[in-house]
């Protein structure tokens, strides 16, 4: 008795879900993808130009890479502070999320947003609201790979 009522509810929910999926506007996938590709590509091209510059200055490949990250992160922080990065992100979607500038944007945006709750538990704590999970998973995977190498040599 109870189970059949539950089942009926499930069917109704499923029917409604189908109706919702028919009605819901689809994301403009093609347009979004072109934007993501072009902007993401341009951000990486900018990264390459900066990388080439540092390598030209005689930095090692590894150091040049680090320096490039720092510059890209600085630019993203500046653009976020000026209120431009979210405008870019509205169009570029993943094109401005996937590059390291998107990581920096998430950090800076969270930090700025909580300024009014103070600089310790506002900015200081919230700065990691998006960056935290990213680093946790990045560290976890790399440590596991390191341990595998320790064990299996």
């Amino acid at each position, binding site marked *: 008795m109870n189970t059949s009522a539950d089942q009926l509810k499930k069917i109704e929910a499923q029917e409604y879900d189908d109706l919702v999926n028919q009605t819901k506007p689809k*994301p403009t*996938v093609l347009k979004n*993808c072109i*934007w*993501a*590709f072009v902007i*993401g*590509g341009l*951000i*990486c*091209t900018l*990264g*390459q130009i*900066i*990388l*080439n510059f540092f390598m030209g200055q005689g930095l090692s490949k*590894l150091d040049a*890479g*680090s320096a*490039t*990250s*720092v510059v*890209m*992160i600085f630019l993203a*922080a*500046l653009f*976020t*502070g*000026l*209120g431009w990065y979210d405008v870019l992100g509205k169009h570029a*979607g*993943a*094109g401005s*999320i*996937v*590059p*390291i500038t*998107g*990581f*920096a944007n*998430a*950090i*800076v945006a969270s*930090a*700025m947003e909580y300024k009014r709750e103070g600089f310790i538990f506002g*900015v200081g704590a919230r*700065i990691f609201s998006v*960056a935290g*999970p*990213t*680093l946790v998973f*990045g*560290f976890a*995977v*790399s*440590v596991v*790979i*390191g341990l595998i*190498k*320790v064990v299996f040599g």
Partner: protein
Amino acid sequence: MGMNELLMAFLVGGVLCLIGQLIMDLTKPAITPGHILVGYISVGALLSGLGLYQPLVDLAGAGATIPLSGFGHSLTQGTLKAVEESGLLGAISGGVEATSAGITAAIIFGYVAAVLFNPKG
């Protein structure tokens, strides 16, 4: 070689972003930028461990290192290198050592930006 290098960075970087866009648009609506960042860093670190990411870096330079998967790659490569040098301790310290510049820059610039700017919306 200059132009070719830039073109490869553009194409590969663009494709990596395009994949992220497809994931956001075509899968569950609950996928947020946070999920994308976590996914890219993890998959990048994993592929790097399997030896599959370095070829992409060789091919595309910044096109592979600027996307967050490249950050994961740096973590793994730093870890592996440190394991060779100092064993178990390296497994724990190597990743952060290799990426410390980026992580610290993000935190410091984030903090400074919060001090200097107000969110405009």
